């Protein structure tokens, strides 16, 4: 009996204090798959997508189950009045989150890039479910804070999921603009002629057409060779010419503008940068994000999720701004990005303007160049993932035939709306069919969790490397005649500096303050070379030494000459490195 009690006690003790080491045993009816919580308190299926309402239920579950780890707030309203929900994930029972190095994550600034939201939310969920179960995650939530905005563009998400669309709409928000310039607004959008919620293609039999059905997969249209005729002509996306101007689908309710061309660095108008709205932060969603980020100077790193193409992008968005991406900053990006390529097979670490296209007024440049925040944009999902083969040229980087093959054998044709007859008021007898809006850019269900996890792993590595400041030495030496020499050595044990090179260049954020308390400070100085006694004295206000930067994997040494004092302590106050103190 005693032995049984002892065993029970041992089991309880083990489970409550060191659960990780006991996961060789099943819990309830579940046996752990490594790297994933075995029986999470918040149950989420990571093989489907959530509407704004569905997301909100998950947020509510998270704050109910993990009140000490997650806080939920609305940081603003969208154009149509939806809340912009932000999760603040950290150990809220210790240091206030404003005093911890912070990491920003957002998803779905482009609404049709919907999995950006699930990847952001997977990250929040994974962090809370693994706190005090996994050492790395526990340290992250104790030391850092994550500000996670799963949906920056809820209006567009609502429209994408609940209204007929293609895979490419709606990208921006729901402000209606006059796309065709005729003075009428949103008068000729898509028409979901077959009522399936997908805007697919229209084709018509034509004796002199340029298209024919593919021999291997007749769903697929292929262009005929030079000098031949096919049996079909293609008529574009599903729609009718509603305003009789000879154009189809040319002025939608979700007008063409791009929230990711609405940011403050090197903003240019629409004729230079297609998609720019009126001026930087002229959209309510980007303005709310700006306000939050400017109110939180502790944000040192950021990830903004997009699709598609398997890219880990850094700035700059324009060739002209290469001059502001300084070598020391690029070294940090390279160290992170190179590992990212390894962690997410099929993804490439690239520079936006060189490897993708030029972007003026993009979010990535505002974050790096105007806020000094080390930022990546990951373009989620890649056609590499169809067959784990390096993408070829063609539709979204894959051979068109492979896409049909993937759909046929792995999705069992779930991605395709079969061609069906339709009587069109303007084109007459046509057929409607083609790939669904949730194919091509968005992960099929069975591929979502892995992509989310790998991207999260890269992002957590990035977050881990936001500055971590430690007082590695704090000593005093008696100099006689009542004077003491006090030395403090403050190290940054991670890759990201307290101030990016661009931050120092533009003096974006205030310096770090290293202050001595508890004694009368007669002189204070930064020690440049301790052995040779090279110092830089700060004559004005020497008790608070201003340190412009504590570089990554490096340290600074401060020396004070003080008189008297007891309980002498040092405080390091760094905008991006947090606040730490130590006493003699």
């Amino acid at each position, binding site marked *: 009996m005693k032995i049984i009690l002892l065993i029970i006690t041992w089991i309880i003790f083990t489970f409550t204090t060191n659960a990780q080491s006991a996961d060789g045993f099943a819990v309830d009816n579940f046996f752990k798959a490594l790297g994933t919580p075995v029986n999470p308190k918040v149950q989420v299926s990571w093989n489907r997508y959530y509407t704004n309402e569905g997301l909100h239920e998950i947020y509510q579950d998270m704050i109910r189950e993990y009140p000490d780890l997650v806080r939920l707030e609305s940081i603003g309203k969208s154009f149509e009045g939806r809340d912009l929900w932000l999760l603040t994930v950290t150990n809220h029972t210790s240091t206030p989150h404003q005093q911890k190095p912070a990491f920003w994550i957002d998803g779905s600034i482009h609404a049709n890039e919907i999995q950006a939201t699930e990847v952001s939310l997977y990250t929040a969920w994974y962090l809370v479910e693994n706190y005090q179960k996994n050492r790395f995650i526990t340290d992250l939530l104790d030391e850092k804070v994550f500000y996670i905005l799963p949906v920056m563009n809820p209006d567009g998400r609502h429209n994408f999921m609940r209204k007929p669309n293609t895979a490419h709409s709606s990208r921006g928000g729901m402000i209606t603009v006059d796309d065709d*310039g005729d003075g009428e607004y949103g008068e000729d959008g898509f028409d979901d002629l077959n009522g399936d919620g997908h805007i697919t293609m229209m084709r018509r039999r034509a004796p002199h057409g340029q298209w024919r059905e593919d021999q291997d997969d007749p769903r697929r249209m292929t262009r005929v060779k030079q000098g031949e005729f096919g049996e079909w002509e293609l008529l574009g996306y599903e729609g009718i010419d509603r305003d009789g101007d000879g154009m189809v689908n040319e002025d939608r309710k979700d007008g063409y503008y791009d929230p990711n061309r609405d940011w403050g660095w090197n903003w240019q*108008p*629409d*004729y230079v940068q297609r998609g720019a709205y009126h*001026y930087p932060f002229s959209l309510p969603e980007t303005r709310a994000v700006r306000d939050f980020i400017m109110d939180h100077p502790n944000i040192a790193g950021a990830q903004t999720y997009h699709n598609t193409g398997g890219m880990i992008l850094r700035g700059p968005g324009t060739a002209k701004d290469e001059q502001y991406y300084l070598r020391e900053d690029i070294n940090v990006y390279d160290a992170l990005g190179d590992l990212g390529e390894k962690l997410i097979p099929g993804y490439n670490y690239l520079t936006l303007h060189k490897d993708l296209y030029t972007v003026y007024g993009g979010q990535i440049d505002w974050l790096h160049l105007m806020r000094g925040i080390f930022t990546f944009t990951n373009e989620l999902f890649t056609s590499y993932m169809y067959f784990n083969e390096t993408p070829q040229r063609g539709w979204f980087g894959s051979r068109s035939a492979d896409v049909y093959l993937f759909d046929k054998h792995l999705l069992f044709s779930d991605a395709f709306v079969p061609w069906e007859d339709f009587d069109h008021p303007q084109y007459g007898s046509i057929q409607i069919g083609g790939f669904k809006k949730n194919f091509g850019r968005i992960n099929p269900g069975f591929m979502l969790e892995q992509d989310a996890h790998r991207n999260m792993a890269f992002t957590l590595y990035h977050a881990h490397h936001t500055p971590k400041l430690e007082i590695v030495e704090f000593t005093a030496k008696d100099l006689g005649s009542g004077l003491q020499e006090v030395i403090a050595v403050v190290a940054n044990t991670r890759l990201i500096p307290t101030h990016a090179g661009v931050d120092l260049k533009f003096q974006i954020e205030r310096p770090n303050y290293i202050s001595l308390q508890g004694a009368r400070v007669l002189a204070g100085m930064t020690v440049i070379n301790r052995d040779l006694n090279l110092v830089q004295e700060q004559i004005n206000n020497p008790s608070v030494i201003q340190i412009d930067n504590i570089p990554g994997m490096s340290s600074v040494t401060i020396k004070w000459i003080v008189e008297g004092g007891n309980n002498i302590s040092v405080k390091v106050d760094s905008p991006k490195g947090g606040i730490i103190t130590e006493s003699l």
Partner: protein
Amino acid sequence: MQSQVVYPVQYIFIALFLLQINFSTAAIRTTNQNNNEQDYQDHNQLSQRLANLSKNHPSLANLQSLTKTDGSKDIWLLTIGKGDIANKPALAVVGGVEGDHLLGSELAVQFAEKLLNDPAFESERDLLNEISFYIFPDMSPDAREQYFMPIRYERRGNARPTNLDRDGKVGEDPYDDLNGDGLITMMRIKDPTGKWMRHPDDERIMVRARPEKGEKGNYLLFTEGLDQDKDGQFNEDGEEGVFFNRNFTFNYPVFTTGTGAHAVSEKESRAIADFLFQAKNVFAVITFGPANNLTKPLTYNDKDANTKIFTGWKEHDIKINQQLSNLYKTHVGKQAPKAEPGQAGDFFQWAYFHYGRFSFSTQGWSLPETENDESDTPASQELNLIRWAEDHDVSDIFVPWQSIDHPDFPGKEVEVGGIAPFVMKNPPYTMVDSIALKHASFILEMAALRPKIDLVNIETEKLGTNLHRITAEVMNTGSFPTASQSGEVIRWVQKTVLRINLNESQNLVSGKPVEVLGAIRGHSALKRSWLIRGKGSLNIRVGSEASGFREVQISL
């Protein structure tokens, strides 16, 4: 209302100040009281004048507050017009783009007053049937108010707490009124390392020594104040916030003094941009500010006008600028102020390059250029101002140098004095009325050149039973084009739309039912035709908000 309460308190402060310090020279203005018609007026007084216009002309004038600044001052928009204002051309008149340019706001308000009240403009008021005016009299009310405060200095920034010198601290080193005269002037410190010297022609004036001419400096020169944060700079971070006229997107000067966190970051700049973007009827903007493209038109530069991000005016727009400049000179004549280019991030250039409208700007007044001086002594605007003031019997221009003890320069000879704030950029108030009259008549004649759309030479030709060809010319009978060339490029400028609306029994055999037209130059036309099958009436409608609309009914 606010400053009426505050004023007596200000007097007490000033009086206390005067008692405490050893005050010797007499010729200095001792208070900043403004005597209504004798001097420029503060925000409350301007607001009252605007409210009066709206009250006395309810059918013509409407006053609205677009926003309140961080300093709790209204950004006023006075709309003058009648009828369907949104669908006929409008001119925007903007003042106070720089807080230290008191004249600009006054010219904007007086334009409204003269248009609505002055018997001389009786006949011009008929224009209001066809054109409207959006008047934004004061875009920098927080800064402008500094003229009326106990310590007067030339301020450009709004009331947003700002770290102007980017050292991480906000407002830690403001001006200090060391001689207690209520004015921030200069201070000169005798010092062998100084680069400044007294002007050989007038010892009151400080000029930079020219070593190449054998001159030696013996003074340091700073604005009046203490180095409160001991960083070696004087008054580099006071209460000023963001400058309206440095906060716009064209050629935005990122991370420089007064430009804000990013372009269009301020309530003032957002309020006017948001209003103007939805006001599709505005065809031109007139700014009273430091730039001037009216005394001399801008010059055409092929490269600047045609690079991808163009930075020079387009060729045909330059021609309109030339026309307007000629008109300006007929009204303002020899007193035309000096031509000045725009500045990075300013409102005047934004209006052309990013808002896509014709944009004209003038200071209204500038210190007249002096005759070419043959002497070898250094050129000095300050000296010119003093001489001009003497010739024109203008007083209170100069604060005599007065010795003070300065804690940052112990044991050194320090004097405070120099040109009074505001007088370099603003004429004495007594001159304003005649300047305002000339500018009002210029604006009204300019307004009459507005674009005006018409349909002319409409012909109906019967080709057979129930088959007609209609031909018409879309003509701009005004002088201004229907859009500037920059406006043809800017997406948010509404283009001219030509639309034929058929009845249900008709159909279009040939021709476009809707066509978005390019800009039509002044006194020019475009010909279009339609082939129509069917009978009965139809209508053709053409135009844009900025050139007006024209609609004709045709019966087949």
